[in-house]
């Protein structure tokens, strides 16, 4: 089927107005030898048949509503209140274009302005953009901005090995055509004191993550001063749920804050679309990439909102733009805004507390099992590391088969010294029963 509304009579009239005989006459410049290729895309299905096929495909997956999920590592199974999808499903929002015509886009623009405001509060920063593609690309833009903000004559980035491995890899992809050296994570065991030793006059930024990839809260006291002392910027990757409870990066001197916003009400959706949170200090607002909404007035003096500082952007500046970015994650920025508005001040703190209590309950119980060791050298938030007596894949297979549990992330993939170590995530959606089942499963797999 198609969604084309044309009747035969419409078509005839329109072709006549144009002065051609048939639809085939509308492509005179297309080289004849390549015209109308035979495609192997399968024949059309009706809407009903398509629905059945898609249901079938979706049911071939094991989803977190039918399995207990202890997998995190940058994407989390948090609860999203029903207000979020109610708003996302409004055609007024999801079928709207980028708000380049502000008079007929005040809904999207005001929602963006409010999102920016809530992100500033959450992160403790002065200014937030209207989002990037995801946490990883947000960090890549942060790294580029730090080079730009330090006058473009610093070429070194010090990166903690406990920044999400995929984020680190995206930063390297982004910077492969540039004169830049990324150090720090070449030694996967580097700790904060090791990284601080690498800071020098060539350094544009130190990148840390807290809670880090292993779920641990880094000891950030005095860190910003040491970074600023060499004239570099402090970039912090964080988790927005943790900020419901813990000190925001703005309070301990971060210059740029990047985060994956998926936790703020956005479905797991197998990895995307997600939301790249990006916030910084006022001093760097003109160096920042991405869309930005500002307040203004209309010709009657009524308050209104527009995209602003567009002279930074590609459609005006072309090759001199701060980035090639043309979209943000409009709809998922809206999801995060509705999530924050619905949970509000006390709700987000409650979610963070539940994550804390449940993950610590799980860690204590697993720590008591014979053969298992929970790594507790730093405080953790909702994820923690367990050393297993068997390979992670073997344990996870058993948990899946026998307990309908999606086990944790195999850290040996990225950190060879953490072979047989698993990263377990526990959120507010994991019940005590699920956690007890996980502990029981781990106990039984030892007896196999």
């Amino acid at each position, binding site marked *: *089927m*198609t969604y084309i*509304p*044309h009747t035969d009579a419409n078509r005839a009239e329109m072709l006549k*107005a144009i002065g051609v005989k048939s*639809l085939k006459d509308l492509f005179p410049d297309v080289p004849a030898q390549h*015209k*109308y*290729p035979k*495609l192997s895309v399968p024949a059309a299905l009706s809407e009903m048949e398509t629905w059945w096929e*898609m249901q079938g*495909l979706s049911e071939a*997956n*094991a*989803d977190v509503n039918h399995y207990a999920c202890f997998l995190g590592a*940058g*994407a989390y199974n948090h609860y999203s209140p029903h*207000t979020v*999808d109610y*708003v996302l*499903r409004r*055609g007024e*929002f999801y*079928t*709207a*274009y980028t708000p380049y*015509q502000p008079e*007929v886009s*005040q809904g999207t623009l005001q929602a963006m302005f*409010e999102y920016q405001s809530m992100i500033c509060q959450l992160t*403790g920063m002065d200014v*937030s953009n209207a*989002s990037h593609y*995801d946490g990883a*690309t947000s960090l890549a833009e942060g790294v580029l901005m730090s080079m730009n903000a330090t006058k473009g004559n610093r070429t070194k980035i010090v990166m903690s090995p406990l920044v999400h491995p995929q984020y680190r890899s*995206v930063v390297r992809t982004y910077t492969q*055509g540039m004169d830049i050296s990324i150090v720090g994570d070449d030694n996967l065991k580097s700790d904060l004191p090791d990284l601080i030793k690498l800071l020098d006059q060539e350094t544009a930024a130190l990148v840390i993550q807290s809670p880090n990839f292993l779920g641990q809260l880094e000891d950030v006291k005095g860190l910003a001063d040491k970074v600023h002392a060499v004239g570099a910027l402090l970039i912090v990757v964080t988790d927005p749920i943790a900020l419901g409870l813990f000190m925001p990066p703005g309070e301990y001197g971060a210059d740029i804050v990047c985060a994956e916003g998926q936790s703020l009400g956005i*479905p*797991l959706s197998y*990895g*995307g679309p*997600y939301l790249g949170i990006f916030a910084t200090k006022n001093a760097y607002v003109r160096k920042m990439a991405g869309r930005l909404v*500002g307040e203004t*007035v*209309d*010709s009657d003096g009524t308050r209104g909102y*527009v995209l602003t500082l567009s002279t930074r952007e590609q459609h005006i500046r072309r090759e001199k733009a701060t980035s090639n970015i*043309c*979209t943000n*994650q*409009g*709809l998922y920025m809206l999801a995060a805004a*509705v999530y924050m*508005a*619905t*949970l*509000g001040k006390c709700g987000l703190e409650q*979610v963070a*507390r539940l994550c804390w209590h449940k993950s610590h309950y799980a860690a204590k119980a697993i720590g008591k099992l014979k053969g298992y060791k929970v790594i507790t050298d730093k405080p953790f938030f909702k994820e923690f590391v367990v050393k297993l007596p068997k390979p992670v894949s073997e344990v*996870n297979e058993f948990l899946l088969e026998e307990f309908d549990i999606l086990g944790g992330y195999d850290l040996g993939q990225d950190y060879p010294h953490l072979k047989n170590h698993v990263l377990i995530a526990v959120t507010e959606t994991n019940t005590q029963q699920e956690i007890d089942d996980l502990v029981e499963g781990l106990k039984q797999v030892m007896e196999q």
Partner: protein
Amino acid sequence: MSEPLIYEISSPGRCGVEMPASDVPETELPKDMLRSNLGLPELSQLDVVRHYMHLSQMNYNIDGGFYPLGSCTMKFNPKINEDVARLNGFAFTHPLQDPQTVQGNLAVMWHLQEWLKDIGGFAAVSLQPAAGAHGEFTGILIMRKYHLDRGDTKRSVILIPDSAHGTNPASSAMSGFTVKQLPSDSRGNIDLEALRAACDDTVVGLMLTNPNTLGLFEEHLEEVVKLVHACGGLMYGDGANMNALVGVVRPGDLGFDVMHYNLHKTFSTPHGGGGPGSGPVGVTEKLVDFLPGPVVDAEYPDDGDDTPLYVYRQPKKSIGRLKAFNGNFGMFIRAYTYIRVHGAEGLLANTEHAVLNANYIRVKLRDKFPVPYDRINMHEFVCQGKFAGSDVRALDVSKRLMDYNFHPPTNYFPLIVPEALMIEPTETESKETLDTFIDAMRKIADEAVNHPELLHEAPHNAPVKRLDEVKAAKDLVLCCMPIEFEKQATA
């Protein structure tokens, strides 16, 4: 019409949703690491719903009306797509699950890769890039790595026509290359002489949007491709205008080496008020090893079973990862559904009717709005909002269209046409809608001459009047605060 800011309707103590009490024994919090205050708003659930309902009512949108927005392909967003993307098995799977537990997801991705290859005429596709500009950046990095891999280190110039989208030069600059702009000839094609002069052994490649942003199919494409390839450069296709080509011709057959698709344009995934997009990249045989990874492969078991096992594979010389996880999967489901519903015939019919609609509007408007390159166009065309004896400009026409309940066309783009109005109707609009739009445009052309003040002061019926963009950039108010914080700040 205005809606208070979310902090202005906040009252201490309200909460829109209650979380359950902890069902496990509590663990003490590390006091010295906690934050002192959290400045999020406090609203009841009904407050939240009404607030966003009111905001939504201030938005123009496809479900509500016609968006003749050039280069944006604002076609109907089918409703089945939204329900499919929310199916439990798709919306609630974790990106790091063992591929064996998400074979449905990998099947969707593999088929979409195969269909995009087929539609574009390419040897392989990566679904990873998150948007069109992200796909461009990916394509440029692929071209870069291809040359370096051959030991060809002196290439540093990307050729870009003056009619190109701004993302083209910006993506090139991000990859460390310099941009050389090429002029257009009198028929809207690339100036062949200028191209010939620019082609040498420093050229990485040419970025070409075809049809270009004037909505015109490049008349000398074969020669353009020959010149670029002869100097060792590659042809990059900007797939922004793919809605003019699907089923009619495949860019891969025309000589393009790499191209990004915009699932949010051609394949009906919603624009979402500015994202999320999705910008898969297709490449010819010689570039497959450089694609961002991982890509999805189908492995068939030896026992003759025709149900494949879908697995991830890393291309051998991959440029690396462009984003975390597996790309904008939610958009893949919608694009898959769109292709499945249409089949090859339906996809071709869409292209033909998109081109029919655009040409119909052109011939009905050209006596009132000059069309500088007046020949059969593809899915869009560019005319001018300028009128003899009137100081009315394209922007005024755009704002006045709002009063007639239409979204404005793209204005002031491409940059090579003064007072440009770029119109792309898409295939899903009916003749009745187009006729109403044409009537409105013709009336506006008359008003421009007889009542120019109507246009200068437009819009009259929108939620707000014309907004002061200069003030926004000068005074720079980028966020608001909870009321009690504001009071503290001023005290």
